[in-house]
């Protein structure tokens, strides 16, 4: 059985290498690494999105913004300049009125801002004015459930690494495995395989293993060239391996429902978009999307972040590995069942 399995893996690897996929995977990983190291900045340069017109005698708010957040606020001195600055779509106006000290703020929104963003901005201004007037900002005691945690936030370019590893390494086998399947359907290889002693599970696991080997190579190249050799390799490789196995099997289930790549491509594209949603949440931590934590890519991206930039929460990685194993435990039997139904029973 082991020999059959090795032969299947070796055959898939040959196919992948012969069609230049290995070369392209390594080249793309190097390209991503170059982008991360040399092109993407460590910090985003923000355009000023607050326009402040402070009409008080002390100009306390304008001065505070000018001194503490010069890049975020544009301070103006006249109504004409204020209205002109607000023509830009991303800007929010803050008109401060009062005699000596600020007594009233008028916030000017563009119109498309959400209610929560508006209320939060009001709260931030109230907080800052309170701090300015009373000297001490309002605060609350905090209980930290896992004290001593909290690593430094990574620079913007490096914070992309977990996302790139997820997208490039863990998800790369989805399309390729499907294309190999369609090739085998066309060439009747599957029919020939069915009369051999090899089982469906062996076939699926061999294909997933091949894709996972490619994923590991891609992740290793990208990691070495970006964060360097001092990374949490066991976790990174384990998470990428499990993620790739799970996603490849899921893609094989989907592919078995279609006749050719043309039919498969659009549903695949759509599913890839959905699987990428956790990456949006990764960059917008306050964002909530229904059922997103059920996607296999959700624990993946957080586990990768923890592996690359540890905050001292090994639970994140354990949880992710367990969730991936649970997903794998569902996807593998589902894939076997679907294959038996779609390919064997229908004699494809």
């Amino acid at each position, binding site marked *: 059985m082991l020999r059959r399995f090795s032969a299947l893996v070796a055959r898939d690897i040959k196919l992948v290498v012969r069609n230049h996929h290995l070369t392209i995977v390594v080249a793309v990983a190097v390209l991503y690494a170059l982008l991360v190291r040399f092109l*993407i900045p460590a910090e985003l340069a923000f355009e000023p999105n607050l326009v402040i017109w402070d009409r008080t005698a002390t100009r306390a708010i304008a001065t505070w913004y000018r001194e503490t957040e010069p890049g975020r606020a544009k301070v103006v001195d006249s109504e004409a300049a204020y209205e002109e600055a607000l023509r830009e779509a991303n800007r929010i106006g803050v008109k401060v009125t009062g005699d000596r000290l600020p007594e*009233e703020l*008028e*916030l000017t*929104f563009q119109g498309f801002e959400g209610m929560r963003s508006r209320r939060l901005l009001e709260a931030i201004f109230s907080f800052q004015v309170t701090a300015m007037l009373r000297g001490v900002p309002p605060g609350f005691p905090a209980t930290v*459930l896992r004290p001593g945690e909290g690593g430094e936030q990574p620079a913007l370019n490096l914070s992309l690494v977990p996302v790139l590893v997820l997208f490039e390494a863990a998800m790369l086998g989805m399309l390729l495995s499907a294309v190999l399947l369609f090739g085998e359907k066309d060439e009747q290889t599957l029919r020939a395989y069915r009369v051999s002693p090899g089982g469906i599970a062996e076939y699926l696991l061999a294909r997933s293993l091949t894709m996972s080997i490619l994923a590991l190579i891609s992740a290793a190249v990208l990691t070495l060239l970006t964060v360097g050799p001092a990374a949490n390799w066991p976790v990174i490789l384990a998470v990428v391996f499990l993620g790739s196995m799970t996603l490849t099997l899921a893609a094989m289930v989907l592919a078995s429902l279609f006749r050719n*790549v043309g039919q498969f491509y659009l549903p695949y594209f759509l599913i890839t978009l959905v699987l990428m949603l956790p990456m949006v949440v990764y960059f917008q931590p306050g964002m909530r999307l229904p059922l997103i934590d059920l996607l296999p890519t959700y624990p993946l991206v957080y586990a990768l972040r923890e592996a690359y930039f540890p905050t001292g929460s090994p639970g994140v990685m354990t949880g992710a590995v367990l969730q991936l194993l649970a997903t794998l435990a569902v996807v593998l039997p589902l894939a076997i069942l679907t294959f038996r139904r779609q390919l064997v029973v229908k004699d494809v």
Partner: protein
Amino acid sequence: MKSRRVWSMIKRDFASSLRDTITLWILVFPPLLALLARLLVPAVGGATVTLVATPDLGEALIGRLAEYAAVEVVAGREALNRRVLRLDPAVGVAREDGAYRLILEGNEGDQTESVAAIILADAVGPRAIAIRSRDLGRTGSPVAGFVAVMFAMMSLVLAVSLISLNIVEDKETGSITSLAAAPLTRWEYLAGKGLLGLAITLLMVFAALYLMGAGPFDPVKVLVVTLGGFVSAALVGFYVGAISDNQIAAIAGLKVGNLLFMMVPLITLVLPDRLEFILYPAPTYWTFLAYRGALVDAAGWPQLLRWSGINLALSLILVALSARFLGRRLSLRG
């Protein structure tokens, strides 16, 4: 080049796509994209922080907190701790001995705790200053605009993929050599593939934009930008089709082709202005600028025509440089 023969080529490919239910997917795809956008845009625009509360905070306070942030109400303190310890950064709000307290995991980002404290302070206490709001009444959210731009770029990527897979399928099934017997030149063959790809792109771009509620935008501007951007997209599709003898190889080619298409816009978003010149030779950079101008920044015609013109010029230079290679690799006579 005879338009009748190009039209026959389009009809043939269209019939093939009908048979393969690709057309059905193309019709279903924009509404699904729009659904995704409708889910995504308010979520991105309204993202502040996630708060976790227990019912003992009182309905009134929970309601006030929900004006600022997503609030999840859980049964008790233990459930609150469990929720805070989950993967995403959520902050618990509890009342102990009559005082409010924030419950943190310990690994939240710098701003999460301070934003939660600011929200709680505003929700429970009187404000130090009167705050009123004014609204300029604009409706086109930049987030929605950017999602629209990315969806338009994705439609071009799909066109690239469909064109190339279509050519490779012709090679694999031997149709390309059968066509050699017909009075069809290779350029008519490519024009047929390209025009069908263009029709699919336009259908997907406009359906996705209208269904997701992107706007306000000028459809003529979007049309011009799409036409400018499509030339380079089709060229990538032809290249991948030309160099790939089978679908496995085509997927390898598409990986690089699609990367060129989607990476350039993403890099443009984060690249400092002073380094943007690096992207000038890439037609997709100009496609992205033009889509952003048409869908986000309400750019005027002169600017849009300049961007689309540069895009088209660069793409045509690439077409001229590639013509010989494509002609040789996509010869109908094998």
